[in-house]
């Protein structure tokens, strides 16, 4: 199994830390992992993205052009990465703030209203774990218990009391992800 993922959105949405938790979960699952961020001037107030690869084998390139899954959290990233999903692959996105919805017909498209759910839960920082839950529902490549272990590893201990909240967010994400049907786009 090799899963090549890009997570892309605004700086501050927890893109990089979600990638890190996913990578740690992979390690807990005894997989090879790589986490390659875009770094540099584009991170300041602009878009942030990270390529995460989980694999049963040694990982070759940590830097990729096409992905099995694109997790897209803003319009700029949609413009940039919709075309980067492999045919038959997955595009998961947060519809809030998206004006140009995806149009491809050769990939599986899903929506998760992460902002809405996180706001309802009373903690906007939990947003990225809602997204994580949605992703894991579509592609159960790591078990929830390994994600919790991954959270423990990547969060400083002073935040460990928030792990149950993170777990709840993941579960909400799993329960609320929905297939995006292109017909809905015609309004």
């Amino acid at each position, binding site marked *: 199994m090799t899963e090549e993922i890009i997570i892309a959105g605004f700086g501050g949405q927890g893109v990089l830390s979600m990638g890190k938790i996913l990578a740690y979960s992979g390690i807990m699952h005894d997989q*090879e992992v790589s986490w*390659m961020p875009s770094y540099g001037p584009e991170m300041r107030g602009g878009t942030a993205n990270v390529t995460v690869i989980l694999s049963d084998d040694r990982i070759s390139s940590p830097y990729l*052009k096409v992905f099995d899954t694109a997790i897209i959290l803003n319009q700029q990233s949609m413009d940039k990465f919709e075309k980067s999903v492999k045919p038959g692959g997955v595009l998961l996105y947060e519809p809030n703030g998206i004006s140009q919805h995806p149009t491809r017909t050769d990939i599986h498209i899903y929506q998760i209203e992460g902002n809405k759910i996180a706001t309802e839960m009373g903690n906007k920082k939990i947003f990225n774990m809602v997204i994580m839950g949605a992703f894991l529902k579509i592609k159960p490549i790591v078990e929830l218990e390994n994600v919790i272990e991954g959270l423990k590893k990547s969060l400083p201990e002073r935040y460990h009391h928030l792990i149950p909240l993170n777990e709840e967010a993941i579960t909400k994400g799993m329960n609320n992800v929905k297939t995006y049907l292109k017909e809905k786009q015609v309004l």
Partner: protein
Amino acid sequence: MSELKLMKGNEALAEAAIRAGVDAYFGYPITPQSEVIEYLMTERPEQRTGMVVLQAESEIAAINMVYGAASTGKKVMTSSSSPGISLKLEGISYLAGAELPAVIVNVVRGGPGLGTIQPSQADYFQSVKGGGHGDYKLYVLAPASVQEMSDFVENAFDIAFKYRAPVLILSDGLIGQMMEKVNLKGQQKRLTDEEVIKRHDSWAVTGKTNRERNIITSLDLQSEKMEARVRRLMKKYEQMEKEDLRYEEFQTEDAEYLFVAYGSSARIAQKAVQLARAKGIKAGLLRPITLFPYPKKVLFDLADQVKGILSVELNAGQMVEDVRLSVEHKVPVEHFGRTGGIIHTPEEVLEALEQKIIN
């Protein structure tokens, strides 16, 4: 005891330095290697092992602190990124001339000048063709993973002390900034002063003992003596070529076309090999792990088997010269690379092979 962690390349290198029992690190921050000194400062190695970590007032100060500390037989290192390494080159030439063991790390960014903070491999010439002045070479290790960022610290010190010569770890922004699983080695004890004296009393300035004084210098105004020194250096480099060459081959057994790439480009080229094979093109990869010594003979022999070679580098064409020298015109050799901080994709690399070599 080893330990499994998810770390950035820069952090893994810094942690490995503490665990390898390094005595001192002198540095100055610069993107994309600032995590090295940042991590070292956060980890408080002065409490963990007694290791000194010092942010100098400049890169030049840092490399000269390395010179001073290395003169005492201690394990010392510094790190920087391209423009900072340019500043250090005078000191590096002096280290080579004075035959001092030290480890220098370059997490390369794009150049020339201040260039860009993003990944590049444009310091190949600087690393293997001198860089500083005079007849010297550096033993150059090129890590291609976070694991190697960790492992090569100890390897580099072994070589540095074996030959009493400066060793360069040539990384880049991609390997430095990415995170991977890393298996950290157990903690080695730092040598005590008595142990250092016992090991290095023949050359180091270790304090007053019952012996002739040791003089650390790169200066010899007497021509015959200076020539003897240069010859001694050349002998070391010959021995490095015989005993400490490192490389890795990937699917070369039946390869008809060959990529040659090191560091981050080797990772990307490895994926290009997989993509090529999926299309029925028998491609392989030779990854030099040491850039000096260079796997000349391996390339010379592979040239009898393959129809063409593509040198893949994040620069405008540097290592390709050594590939050409190695294969002695037996087969066509071309270069492919991006610059300016742009990283080539595996697809681009394969396309370059098809356009420049196969067609």
